[in-house]
């Protein structure tokens, strides 16, 4: 089980069911072939993602997605407490949009399977155009059900359930400015920690001065996020986008995320640069080094729950071809995108050295994210 699946099945279900939530207009028919690759911190994850969307009649649009993560992990968590591993996650999604007047209803289903983790999510949404199509209001709900296993224990089986509530408002403010406001609440209940991960605690009986014991997370989590985006059309045919998100949860993680991007078309090319900044506090039960075994009721050492600051720079270039169409195709494009991600952990130490416990250097992560995708409209 790798950390991607549990957190993101819901997102994909909502994207597939909800990305078409442009009420009053069904999404364009298109097919995308994406190759993705994440490499950093001893982890390599790559694979394809294929999306096909097609209208049937004037009121219904279907969408399907097939996505694979091939994982090879020797991350700092793995090399310090376990053994490197490889695995594969396959995910299938189906969605449908039904348009009636200015209202679009969406249904979505996503299934993700890996050797020790199964996740299923169902989603439903509705969007309504208002005020002469200047405003779009959308509501969404999703229910997720996960089964967590252990590769070394066939009898180990735990369950999680997850519910998602979303409200979105997209608003045209001027002929050059469009904005969107999104609020999402997600509740989790069940076995929320990673069954393989450990926390460390001071132990003077060992030569290195510390030992490990299994993580133990609370059985519930509720998160709230509110995000605002604004995209502005510049006079020389370019676009500037700003984004901000505030996040807060019952584990005491609170974060601010901001981003700015610039999109510039030139002939058949479209270039984009983006800078993203994220800063968060840590979970109340997170500690890099506990004072003793079973020191607190709940305990975790997942570095993503540590206080941290991340910065990302993105560069992408897209090239459009088949402008005049070919056969049944209207047009196509190929896009190359690279994200450079740097994370500073403020309370997660690199324990691969031999320093005394608690004095090790704070860990830093550098990763690159590569995407190459072809898109065809028809």
């Amino acid at each position, binding site marked *: 089980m790798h950390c*991607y699946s549990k*957190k*993101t099945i819901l*997102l*994909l279900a*909502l*994207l*597939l069911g*909800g*990305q078409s939530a*442009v*009420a009053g*207009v069904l999404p364009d028919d298109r097919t*995308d072939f*994406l190759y993705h690759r994440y490499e950093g911190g001893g982890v390599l994850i790559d694979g394809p*993602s294929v999306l096909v969307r097609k209208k049937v009649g004037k009121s219904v649009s279907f969408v399907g*997605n097939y996505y694979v993560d091939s994982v090879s992990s020797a991350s700092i968590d793995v090399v310090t407490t376990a053994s490197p591993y490889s695995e594969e996650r396959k995910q299938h999604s189906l969605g449908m949009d039904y348009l009636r007047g200015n209202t679009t209803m969406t249904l979505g289903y996503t299934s993700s399977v890996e050797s020790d983790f199964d996740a299923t999510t169902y989603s439903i949404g509705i*969007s309504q*155009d*208002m*005020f*002469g*199509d*200047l405003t*779009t*209001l959308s*509501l*969404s709900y999703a229910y997720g059900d996960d089964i967590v296993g252990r590769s070394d224990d066939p009898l180990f089986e735990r369950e999680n359930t997850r519910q998602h*509530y*979303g*409200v979105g*408002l*997209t*608003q045209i403010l*001027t*002929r*050059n400015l*469009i904005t969107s406001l*999104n*609020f*999402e*609440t997600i509740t989790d209940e069940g076995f929320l920690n990673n069954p393989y991960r450990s926390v460390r605690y001071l132990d003077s009986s060992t030569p290195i001065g510390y030992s490990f014991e299994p993580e133990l997370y609370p059985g519930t989590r509720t*998160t*709230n*996020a509110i*995000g605002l985006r604004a*995209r502005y*059309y510049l006079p020389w045919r370019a676009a500037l986008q700003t984004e901000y*998100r505030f*996040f807060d*949860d*019952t584990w005491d*993680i609170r*974060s601010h995320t901001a981003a700015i991007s610039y999109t510039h078309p030139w002939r058949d090319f479209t270039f984009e640069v983006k800078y993203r900044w*994220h800063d968060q506090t840590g979970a109340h039960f997170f500690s890099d080094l506990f004072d003793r075994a079973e020191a607190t009721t709940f305990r975790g050492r997942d570095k*993503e729950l540590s206080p941290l600051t991340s910065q990302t720079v993105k560069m992408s270039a897209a090239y459009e071809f088949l402008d005049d169409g070919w056969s049944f195709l209207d047009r196509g494009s190929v896009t190359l995108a690279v*994200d450079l991600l740097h994370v500073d952990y403020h309370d997660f130490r690199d324990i691969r050295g031999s320093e005394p416990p608690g004095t090790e250097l704070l860990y830093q992560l550098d990763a690159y*994210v590569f*995407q190459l*995708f072809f898109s065809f409209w028809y």
Partner: protein
Amino acid sequence: MRQAWRMDMNTSKFSRMLLAMAVLASLSACSGIEPWVKPYERDRLADPIMFLDGDPVSTAYIQHVFEAREGARGGEGAAGGGCGCN
């Protein structure tokens, strides 16, 4: 105790937001608000460079990466667009 209080707050906040949205939706049905950006003035918003989520596969993937590397999730707008000008 604190978690229970926060969950109550969350439920309450969400209910209030739903109510506000319902009021807004009902207003749209009976109001005579004139669109201040006319349909023929939306050519710039219809330009593909103005789409909030022009590439859904790529958007889903990169949000997936950030959710895996950070402790936060949601609020980034799975639903995009909305200008009704495609």
